[in-house]
């Protein structure tokens, strides 16, 4: 599931026109290309340094753009004086919010990319300059005078919810509460999910455990900082090159902020150096466009790493309570949770997704979750891989592990007993279709890892996790070239090898070798609208569009063969890359290959192509179960990850290497989140660790190999059975590691990250308590 991060108001309901092709079990038995591991089309460029990422583009006459940012977490901007900067030789344009018109559709986005009334977080953009060199631009920033009136700030979610907290937005009335509150607060919204009667459920329980949890904000940590080059012509015709997960969305928002038609803005997605949800929105792109428009020259902006941490979109921090009741024989009678997430200075923390996914792994009669979306003086969050789920699932899966211990049941057994399966009414409403949680649990239980012996100070943790997965607006085009090769254009940026997956699916449909198919990511003027690469949707949605486009091309190729053979089109079928006559009165003809049909296309009606546009539905939910062995140094609280196994349902792994890669990458981001990564704020409301050195993402020497098991329970809503695989992998690790560390340390840990000082304190406090 995904949500337009830049939509301020609830999106207007779309007229739903969806098209799915159902899973074809027979075809799945005869896959020739699907499931193989060919090299990716962009691989050569990437190992040689030729691939062009966001910052690698140069346009003639290009200027350097830099952004002035607020040093204060919360302040009224009394005045901004740019005259001295404008007068500096080499400065070609200076902009502030005054260079943008008010925008009702994207009010929060506008306020986020350029502050005016108030600076709402340290790093909030205040003004920007474009100059002939970086040195000049830097000098110009220093010449901009900003008069701030400093306000009290708040960065902690619970403190921000307090009635006397410093207020960020005077007009923020909590949504989802009836009657609506009369006074503004920092609580943007409340939402509630569930069914049954939790009180009645708890009354049936033999053991009830209730715990409070906290998790710190983390960053997606993509290695490529945001970068773009904007070029606005005198007639308003504009081009934008940027690293983004969704260039169509970028075009939409930027055109709106600039007040131009979308047709005047062509956005090209560069190769993208990681996104994980963090590149689904705009930060610098409208600024570069506005600078370019004013300067009449192209402008490049590349964020520094410090800016990425302070002024892009990290994920939420959370504070949560979870209560679960279970009978002695392992039946969960009720589950309840409250999830308070802060998502930075504007509404949109994924608390609702957290509340929806918290108990999704379980078939429960009684469940209730409540979510609060809270604003604080931190950068506005963006999506991060399964946004909202890792935290809430961490809380729930920690309590499940503790309950298993209390009733003396194997934790996988307890999960299996209560696992969601096909037909289960999910904790957030809909009924699950075919899904693979039970299969991942069984595979984990039977994996040699699960029964391997442990040494002293070592502990094993297990957890399951869930993600919705998403479809959405998609289109793609497939051209049959005269030489029998095939060119595909999709509109979803490739962040992890999806071009290879597209080529595989087209090759499978067309019955030709993988090497004869090439896929590119087309710019926004070459293809219809595509939703962003997010929500684990690309291999599913763009893949289905490619399959449909292939089938259309096949139909056309059959028509051409029928024309050549002079038989009815219905009498031609497509098999193994060839048109063949079939049926009683089709006649005897040698099959014609795709290449042969393509070679004569000019004589049979011109170029052959297929395309498909639709709003994809039927993305199957995905579940995973992780096992981890940890070792805790009881004298220092340091945690080592000794062994790690990911088991996840992929529906169908089109290119297993990249499925494994998603599992491994997600798990390791989860390891970072669990152990050391965190946004650390000082009393002054400033971020203290805005760099890789102190943000502490896992490095190669911190980790073992990450074993993977791909479970394949086909998604009935996809012809090949594909489910999204990109996001679920980050959901279980937080809890799995917390369970492992708690077992190794002999004390339950309830706050992330489990950094050494925190682990050591828990161990020492437990010793004192035991005496």
């Amino acid at each position, binding site marked *: 599931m995904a949500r337009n991060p830049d939509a301020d108001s609830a999106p207007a309901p779309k007229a739903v026109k969806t098209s799915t092709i159902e899973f074809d079990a027979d075809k799945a038995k005869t896959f020739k290309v699907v499931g193989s591991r060919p090299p990716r089309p962009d691989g050569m460029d990437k190992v040689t340094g030729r691939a062009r990422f966001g910052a690698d583009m140069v346009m003639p006459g290009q200027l350097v753009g830099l952004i002035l940012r607020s040093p204060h977490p919360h302040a009224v901007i009394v005045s901004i004086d740019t005259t001295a900067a404008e007068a500096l030789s080499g400065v070609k344009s200076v902009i502030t919010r005054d260079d943008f018109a008010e925008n009702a559709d994207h009010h929060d986005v506008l306020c986020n990319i350029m502050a005016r009334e108030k600076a709402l977080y340290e790093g909030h953009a205040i003004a920007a300059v474009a100059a002939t060199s970086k040195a000049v631009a830097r000098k110009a920033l220093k010449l901009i005078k900003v008069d701030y009136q400093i306000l009290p700030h708040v960065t902690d979610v619970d403190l921000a919810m307090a009635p006397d907290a410093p207020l960020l937005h005077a007009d923020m009335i909590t949504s989802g509460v009836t009657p609506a509150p009369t006074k503004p607060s920092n609580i943007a919204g409340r939402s509630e999910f569930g069914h049954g009667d939790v009180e009645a459920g708890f009354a049936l329980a033999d053991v009830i455990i209730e715990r409070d949890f906290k998790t710190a904000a983390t960053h997606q940590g993509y290695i490529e900082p945001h970068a773009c080059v904007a070029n606005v012509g005198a007639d308003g015709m504009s081009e934008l090159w940027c690293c983004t997960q969704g260039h169509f969305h970028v075009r939409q928002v930027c055109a709106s902020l600039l007040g131009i038609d979308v047709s005047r803005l062509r956005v090209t997605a560069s190769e993208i150096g990681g996104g994980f949800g963090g590149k689904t929105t705009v930060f610098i792109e409208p600024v570069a466009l506005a600078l370019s428009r004013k300067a009449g020259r192209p402008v490049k902006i590349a964020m520094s790493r410090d800016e990425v941490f302070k002024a892009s979109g990290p994920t939420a921090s959370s504070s949560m309570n979870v209560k679960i009741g279970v009978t002695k024989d392992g039946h969960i009678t009720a589950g309840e949770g409250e999830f308070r997430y802060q998502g930075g200075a504007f509404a949109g923390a994924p608390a609702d997704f957290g509340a929806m996914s918290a108990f999704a792994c379980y078939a429960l009669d009684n469940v209730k979750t409540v979510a609060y979306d809270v604003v604080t003086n931190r950068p506005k969050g963006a999506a991060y891989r399964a946004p909202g789920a890792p935290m809430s699932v961490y809380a729930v899966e920690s309590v499940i592990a503790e309950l298993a211990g209390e009733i003396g049941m194997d934790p996988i057994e307890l999960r299996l007993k209560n696992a969601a399966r096909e037909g289960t009414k999910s904790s957030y409403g809909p009924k699950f279709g075919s899904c693979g949680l039970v299969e991942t649990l069984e595979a984990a239980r039977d994996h040699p890892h699960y029964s391997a012996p442990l040494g002293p100070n070592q502990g094993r943790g297990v957890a399951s996790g869930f993600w919705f997965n998403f479809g959405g607006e998609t289109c793609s085009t497939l051209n049959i070239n005269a030489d029998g090769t095939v060119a595909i254009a999709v509109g979803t940026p490739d962040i992890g090898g999806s071009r290879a997956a597209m080529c595989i699916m087209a090759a499978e449909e067309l019955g030709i070798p993988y090497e004869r198919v090439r896929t590119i990511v087309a710019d926004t003027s070459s293809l219809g609208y595509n939703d962003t690469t997010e929500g684990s949707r690309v291999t599913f949605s763009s893949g289905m569009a490619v399959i449909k486009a292939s089938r259309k091309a096949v139909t056309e190729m059959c028509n051409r063969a029928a024309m050549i053979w002079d038989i009815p089109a219905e009498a031609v079928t497509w098999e193994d890359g060839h048109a063949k006559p079939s049926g009683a009165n089709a006649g005897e003809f040698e099959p014609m290959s795709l290449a042969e049909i393509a070679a004569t296309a000019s004589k049979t009606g011109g170029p052959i192509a297929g395309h498909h546009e639709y709003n994809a539905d039927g993305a199957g939910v995905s579940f995973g179960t992780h096992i981890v062995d940890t070792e805790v140094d009881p004298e220092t609280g340091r945690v080592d990850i000794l062994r790690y196994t990911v088991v996840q349902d992929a529906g169908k792994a089109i290119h297993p290497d990249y499925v494994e890669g998603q599992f491994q990458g997600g798990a390791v981001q989860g390891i970072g989140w669990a152990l050391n990564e965190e946004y650390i704020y000082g009393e002054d409301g400033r971020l203290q660790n805005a760099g890789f050195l102190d943000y502490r993402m896992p490095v190669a*020497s911190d980790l073992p190999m990450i074993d993977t098991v791909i479970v394949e329970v086909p998604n009935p809503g996809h012809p090949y059975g594909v489910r999204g695989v990109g996001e679920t992998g980050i959901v279980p690790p937080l809890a799995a590691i917390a369970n492992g560390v708690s077992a190794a340390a002999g004390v339950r840990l309830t706050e992330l990250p489990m950094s050494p000082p925190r682990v050591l304190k828990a161990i020492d406090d437990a010793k004192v308590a035991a005496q």
Partner: protein
Amino acid sequence: MRYESPQTIEAASALLASEAGLARILAGGTDLLVQLRSGMVEPDLVVDVKNIPTMTSIVEENGGYRIGAAVSSAVMNEHADLCAMWPGVMEGADLIGSTQVQGRATMVGNLCNCGPAADSVPGMVAANAIATIVGPNGRREVPVIDIPVAPGKSTLAKGEIVESVFLPAQVKRGGDAYLRFIPRTEMDIAVVGVGVNIELDDSGVCTHARVGLGAVAIKVLLVEDAAKALIGSKLDDAALDKMAAATSAACKPINDKRGTIEFRTKVAGVLAVRAVKIALERANKRASNGGEK
């Protein structure tokens, strides 16, 4: 900003001394470039010392080693004899940053940057390394411990450059070790760092000890009470406990993004014990090899 790359230390010193504005020495640049980039320092002159031959060589001297101040840690750690004699000092230097950083970073840059968490400094302090300083008024020699004052602040006068560091000969039954605590396995700044150097007599009694302690005060400390707890003992558990307590007692840390006061104080003692055990093993091994390697 001007960049100069003189060929002699005298010329370098003269450049620094005559600069009216802010001047900085550039060795490996792994601290300086980060500071330049962030705007933390804005010098008018940068003097690169890597083209000065006396500063880029390692020479044996009186059984010990004189290490040029511009020798990178990677080069130093490829010197087998030096590593065999002072494994603790070398490991401290080897822990600085990544392989890439190792290719540039110097021990003296680490020392003169004056960060309290500098990884190579506790080991040098424990080994009682002596720095040779060249300045407008000639040469002087100073124990390494006397150079840092506070973060970014040293006792070096304007125009003074550390030319080399001298590590004396290790004794027959002597051994050193350096351990640091970091949350990850690499690429972190020490939360606590402990360097120890011990000497034992033939009966295994500790006759000399020095304990250097990093990241727990505004500068690297020499913990004399910890050394006293060891000297005269056979490094039994009681002595080690006493030493750990003395080490913890010497800590004057702060709460910051890298660790709490409580954590640093406790872990300093824990690491000190572990480091002494390693040093002891090395000393015994060295003795059994007849005082070599």
